Each structure stands twice: as structure tokens, then as C-alpha cells.
């Protein structure tokens, strides 16, 4: 691809994407799709189209969000709306092509909702009473474009925000736009993005560095993987804009080694962007030069914590350090470093293009925009959903995801992963905002949302989460290293029916001490699942204790 210029991109913005006169077929080929058998489905479609010399375009695409219905095939007849098929087998796929080529109507079996029936996308009005309830800003291209084709991203307005930024906005103006938007960090804590960008920009150093945190550690969440696999250029574009704003010359993607497909696609996106002159020396002919490299995690939950992530990027053990100094002042190799989550970065281009004001009207109160959740566990339609902030938990788990698969009542929903907490069924009408979830003793987290039905044992679940944090504790500070292990012993004792009332009291005391005294978020957050289980379901713990009269 020749290097792009501002006029090239301006022409792209005006051009209408070509409309195919023949049917087009898309196959969901992210990790979920591939695991469910998308490869043979793609092969069967291709073979059938080939053998009949139909010349229909078959493309691969990312995650549409309906993970439990994979493999997904989207079939578009020219002039009609797309039809989505789920649970597709190679035989069904072959038949689909053969029958349509023979003039038969598309079959009624295996139909699932098309993306347009599930979600509105950035630019549409936010959902009212009727119509799709999801609103996709971050996932706007996921399941729509071929993530390995930069041209498809460009056809959907890709890199227009970069062009706008470099041609007409100062770094301060970008920061101001972010401030108006109200965007907060999507990694979990919800720190205002504009402030992080400004603090890093204003810090003095030999160089400034931007890092994309793709170390999605919550065991039960995979939003970041899906976005990196489904629309890597969206994250990269956000990162390049961030690099421009803070004055960086280099950026790093830090991605879990457990996500090989995400790594491949990001590496490919970087190569394509370089070839197109959107990355590298003199981007789009300006004097802004910026490069991005990929670095891999190696299986340590604590590396999601900023200071531990920095140590890992430096090639060391991923142990956290006390803050301050914050990474924005003294981060990677002692230089001002801005660490943004995948989802935060995927929002940037839309805020630039559509304006901070537009973004701020979506959401509720101080929680603006949308949030992507991985809704899993005992839920009927497990998958990814992107919703405007402020929607209630009930609308998500019952309205969008269909409640429990078993039909039994929901017992609780867990958000925030190993640092988050349980929310009992009676609180399901709570709107999803940073503040509301915190009030319930949980937190937003990166986007894991686990649904539990009446059969799930919450004492065991507390033990599971705490066990995870004990395993993942780096061992540097005593409150986390020792406190976690002691808490786990008490929980073991209670779960095995040997606990006493005093053990419950000790458990709570230890939990509060760990929250206050631990060095980093891992230790501070580790007691949360236990405390929230005790807060709402203490009778389940008490029911396991040895009788006091003995």
C-alpha cells in the first residue's frame, strides 16, 4: 500500500463504500469462532462458491458478541438486510450456498439475531424504549470488518480521527475534548482519561511513552481480546493519537501471551499502518513520528497493575512499587508513561470525530459513554455486550442475555473479577455506573460479569477467587502474602464445616487489614469477593459453622 496523505483520507471520507452486486458472506473468525469450528465452515463455504464459480465474496470477521452461538455466518443478499446464522456446521454452510445459488430462499433454521437487531452503533441515536438495547462505540467494527484488512477499517471512517487530530488539533484541544467527553479509564478504576493524558504530557522527561494495557487478567473476561482480534486498528489509532498528545515517540502494546490471535492481528495492524504511513517517521507527512511495538505478558495477574506492568515491560519480575511516583511522572525506564486500557483507547477516535459533547450525552451522571461486558456463567446467551452506562444490571443479564440457562432464578451477579464483588439478585435494578457498583461493594472492573443461579455455592466461589489472588500474589508485601494465605485457611476451614463464629470475625478483620495495608491493587482488592459474599450471603457462611454448643 502506498503511503496515505491528508487528501487521500479526505477522499476516503467522501467516498461511498462499493456495494456488491453478488451475495456476500462473513464468517466470525475470532478465538471463540475458531474454537467452535469456524475454519471448516469457512472452507466449506469457499469450496461451494468455488466449485460453482459464483464469485461471491467470503470474508472473515471478528467477534459479533454472540459467543455461545458460534460459529456465526452472516449472509447478505444484495439489497436486503443481513441474515445471521448461528451454530453453523460445514454441511449447513455448503447447503446455504448451494440452495441460494439454486434460487431457493434462505432457510429459517439456525437463524440468530443479526448485529443490526442487537445493537445500534456510534452515530445512531441512543436506544429509546424500542429497538436494540446495545450501543456499540468500542465494538463498532467487531463482527463487521475483516480485522486483517486495513482497507475495511479505512472504509468505515478509520484513521479519519488521526487525520483530524494531526491536521487541525493541538494536543491541548484533544485533552479538552476528552475532558468534555467525561471518558474514564475502562481498566476498572475509572480515573478520568483527560487528566491522565494531561499529567503525562506535562511531566518532564527525556522521552514520553504510551502503553496499551492488554494484559486482561480477570479470569472470566475477554472484552479486550475480542476488540484486539476484531478491530486492532481502532486501538492502534487511539494509541497514535495518544502518542501525539503526550509527545511520545514510542508506544508499546502489552498483551497476554495466552492471546496468540490477538497478538498476530495487532502485529499485522502495525505492519499495515506503517506501510500506509500512519505509523513510523513523519506520519501523514507531518513532523510527528511515532512507533509501536508489541510486548508479551507471561501469565501474571499482578501485571495488570500499572507499576508491575512497567517492571514486566522492562524485562523484570512483575512486582509492583509504591505510588507515588505515578507512572505519568516516572514510569517505564523512569520516563513519563501513560498506560491506557484497550477499551479506553478504542473510544478515542470516536470522541475526536463526533465530539466530546456527543460522548457525554451517552451514559448516566459521571459515567459517560458505553461499557463492554463479558456476560458469562449460568446465563443463557453468554457473550459480549456493549451498553450505554446507566443501564440496569437486570436489563443486561435478563433483557439482553436472557436470564439463566437453567431457568432457575438468578442468585447473584459478580462484577470486577478477583478484585470485585457479588451483587445479590435483589439489587439487579441498580444502574451500571462506577459509583453505583461501588456503593454495592463491588466495582466496575474491566468488564467481567458472571451470573450465578440458585445452585451456585457462594462460599466455594469466595474460596475460588481468594485462591486465585493467593496464587497470583507476587509476595513482595506482607499484608497480601501472609494475609491472603491466612484468609484462605479460614475459608477452607469454614467451607469444610470446621469453622467457628470467631473465624468469621477474624476473616473480616484480616480482610480489612489487607485492604488498608497492601501495596497494590491486587492485595487491596483480594478480600473484596469474600467481604461482599459475607455482606449479602453471611447466612450461607454461618450455616457451615460447627454448632457453638459443641
Amino acid at each position, binding site marked *: *500500500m502506498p503511503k496515505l496523505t491528508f487528501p487521500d483520507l479526505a477522499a476516503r471520507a467522501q467516498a461511498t463504500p462499493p456495494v456488491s452486486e453478488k451475495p456476500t458472506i462473513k464468517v466470525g473468525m475470532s*478465538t*471463540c469462532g*475458531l*474454537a*467452535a469450528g469456524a475454519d471448516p465452515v469457512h472452507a466449506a463455504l469457499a469450496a461451494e462458491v468455488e466449485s460453482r464459480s459464483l464469485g461471491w465474496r467470503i470474508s472473515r470477521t471478528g467477534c459479533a458478541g*454472540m*459467543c*455461545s452461538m*458460534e460459529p456465526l455466518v452472516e449472509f447478505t443478499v444484495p439489497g436486503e438486510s443481513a441474515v445471521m446464522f448461528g451454530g453453523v456446521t460445514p454441511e449447513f454452510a455448503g447447503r446455504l450456498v448451494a440452495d441460494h445459488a439454486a434460487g431457493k430462499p434462505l432457510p429459517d433454521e439456525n437463524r440468530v439475531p443479526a448485529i443490526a437487531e442487537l445493537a445500534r452503533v456510534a452515530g445512531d441515536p441512543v436506544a429509546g424504549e424500542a429497538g436494540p438495547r446495545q450501543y456499540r462505540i468500542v465494538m463498532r467494527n467487531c463482527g463487521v470488518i475483516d480485522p486483517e484488512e486495513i482497507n475495511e477499517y479505512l472504509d468505515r471512517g478509520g484513521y479519519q480521527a488521526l487525520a483530524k487530530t494531526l491536521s487541525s488539533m493541538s494536543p491541548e484541544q484533544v485533552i479538552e475534548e476528552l475532558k468534555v467527553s467525561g471518558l474514564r479509564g475502562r481498566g476498572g478504576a475509572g480515573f478520568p482519561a483527560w487528566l491522565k493524558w494531561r499529567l503525562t504530557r506535562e511531566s518532564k522527561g527525556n522521552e514520553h511513552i504510551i502503553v496499551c494495557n492488554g494484559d486482561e487478567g*480477570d*479470569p*472470566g*473476561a*475477554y472484552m479486550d*481480546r475480542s476488540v484486539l482480534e476484531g478491530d486492532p486498528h481502532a486501538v492502534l489509532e487511539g494509541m497514535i493519537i495518544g502518542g501525539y498528545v503526550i509527545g511520545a515517540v514510542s508506544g508499546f502494546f502489552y498483551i*497476554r*501471551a*495466552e*492471546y*496468540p490471535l490477538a*497478538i*498476530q492481528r495487532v*502485529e499485522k495492524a502495525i*505492519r*499495515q499502518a506503517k*506501510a500506509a504511513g500512519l505509523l*513510523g517517521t513523519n506520519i501523514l507527512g507531518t513532523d510527528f513520528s511515532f512507533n509501536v511495538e508489541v*510486548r*508479551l*505478558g*507471561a*501469565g*501474571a495477574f499482578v501485571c495488570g497493575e500499572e507499576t508491575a506492568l512497567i517492571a*514486566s*515491560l*522492562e*524485562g*523484570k*519480575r*512483575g512486582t509492583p512499587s509504591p505510588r507515588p511516583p505515578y507512572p505519568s511522572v516516572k514510569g*517505564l*525506564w523512569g520516563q513519563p508513561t501513560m498506560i491506557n486500557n484497550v477499551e479506553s483507547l478504542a473510544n478515542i477516535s470516536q470522541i475526536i470525530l463526533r465530539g466530546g459533547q456527543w460522548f457525554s450525552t451517552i451514559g448516566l451522571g459521571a459515567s459517560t459513554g458505553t461499557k463492554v461486558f*463479558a456476560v*458469562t*456463567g*449460568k446465563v443463557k446467551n*453468554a*457473550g*459480549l455486550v456493549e451498553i450505554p452506562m446507566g443501564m440496569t444490571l437486570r436489563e443486561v443479564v435478563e433483557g439482553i442475555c436472557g436470564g439463566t440457562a437453567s431457568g432457575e432464578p438468578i442468585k447473584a451477579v*459478580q462484577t470486577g473479577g478477583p478484585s470485585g464483588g457479588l451483587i445479590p439478585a435483589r439489587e439487579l435494578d441498580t444502574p451500571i455506573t462506577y459509583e453505583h457498583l461501588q456503593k454495592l461493594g463491588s466495582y466496575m472492573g474491566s468488564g*467481567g460479569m*458472571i451470573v*450465578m443461579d440458585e445452585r*451456585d455455592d457462594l462460599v466455594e*466461589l469466595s474460596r*475460588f*477467587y481468594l485462591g*486465585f489472588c493467593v496464587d497470583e500474589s*507476587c509476595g513482595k508485601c506482607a499484608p497480601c502474602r501472609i494475609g491472603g494465605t491466612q484468609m484462605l485457611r479460614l475459608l477452607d476451614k469454614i467451607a469444610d464445616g470446621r469453622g467457628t463464629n470467631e473465624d468469621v470475625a477474624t476473616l473480616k478483620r484480616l480482610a480489612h487489614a489487607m485492604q488498608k495495608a497492601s501495596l497494590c491493587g491486587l492485595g487491596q482488592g483480594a478480600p473484596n469477593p469474600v467481604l461482599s459474599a459475607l455482606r449479602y450471603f453471611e447466612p450461607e457462611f454461618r450455616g457451615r459453622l460447627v454448632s457453638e454448643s459443641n
Partner: protein
Amino acid sequence: MSPTQIEGDVAAISKRWKTKRGSLIMALHGLQDRYGYVPREAAMSLGEQMDVPLARIYEVLTFYNYFRLKSPGKHVVSVCMGTACYLKGAPRLLDEASERLGISPGETSPDGEYHLQVVRCVGCCGLAPVVTVNAELLAKVTSVTLEEHLSGGKASATVGAAAAATVGTMAPADDDGQV
């Protein structure tokens, strides 16, 4: 593998990463991609070629769960123990796999055929419970499908193939802007 072969492999990895800042972990990924684990001889050679003390290399290797210090055997069976998989019966699958293979999690069978391990979420929670056999990911696993995969020679991919399918750390550098 011969010492000269190791020297050669390490030289290629070292050449790619030595001049880049903070790249020790990437070089170690390169070794594990190549061998399926990080052999001691290779770690020693890497230390010499990249001017990193061996103690620092092992400090890093032993911190991160992803790195293996022993050969894992031909088929690596990983039972996902993320929250979604846990709720949907992963602990039982782990017990069954352990019994079927006659090894505990973290162990390799004496004939070197199987290695059983627990992983923390492969990010396919919508398809829970999930088990991977080398690079192949099995979705919505039941006792029956697990048994099929462990007994039926379906586990055909080797560790080498898995490594090739994963990370491009052995691939040539891509700094020249070529697609």
C-alpha cells in the same frame, strides 16, 4: 538437540532482541516457542549472548507462570480454570483428565506423551468449559468429549506446531514497514 543447534537458535533470538530495551521476556518467549520450554543450556547461552546474568534470567523465568523449565511432553492438555469455566464444571473435568492420564496437574506422563496443567482463562468464557490440547481449543467440553480427545488420537498437533501457530517471536524483525 545438540549444543551447536542451541547456540544457533539462541544467536538468532539474541540478535533480534539484544538491542531492544527490556526485551528479556520476549527473548525467553522465543526460546519457549522453539522448544516448548526453556532448557537450561539455552538459558545459559542466552545469558552469555545477551549479557544478562543467569540469576536474572531465572528470577524472571520462575516468576511468570507461562514459562516452563521442563519439557512438557508431546500433548499439553490445559484445563481452563477461569471463573466461567469453574462455575461450569472445570474442577470435575480436571479430576477426570488427571485420572484418565494418571498424572496430577503440573506433571508429565512418564512416556512423555501428555502434560496436564491448569490455565487461568484463555478468554473463551462464552464457550465454557474450555480445554486446550496444544493449539486446539475444545469448546463446551463434557466428560464424553474430553475422553474422546484424550483417548482417540485426536490430539494430533505437536508442541512445535502449537508454538508455530502462536507468537511470532521467531519471525524476522518487521521494522522495515513491509507488509
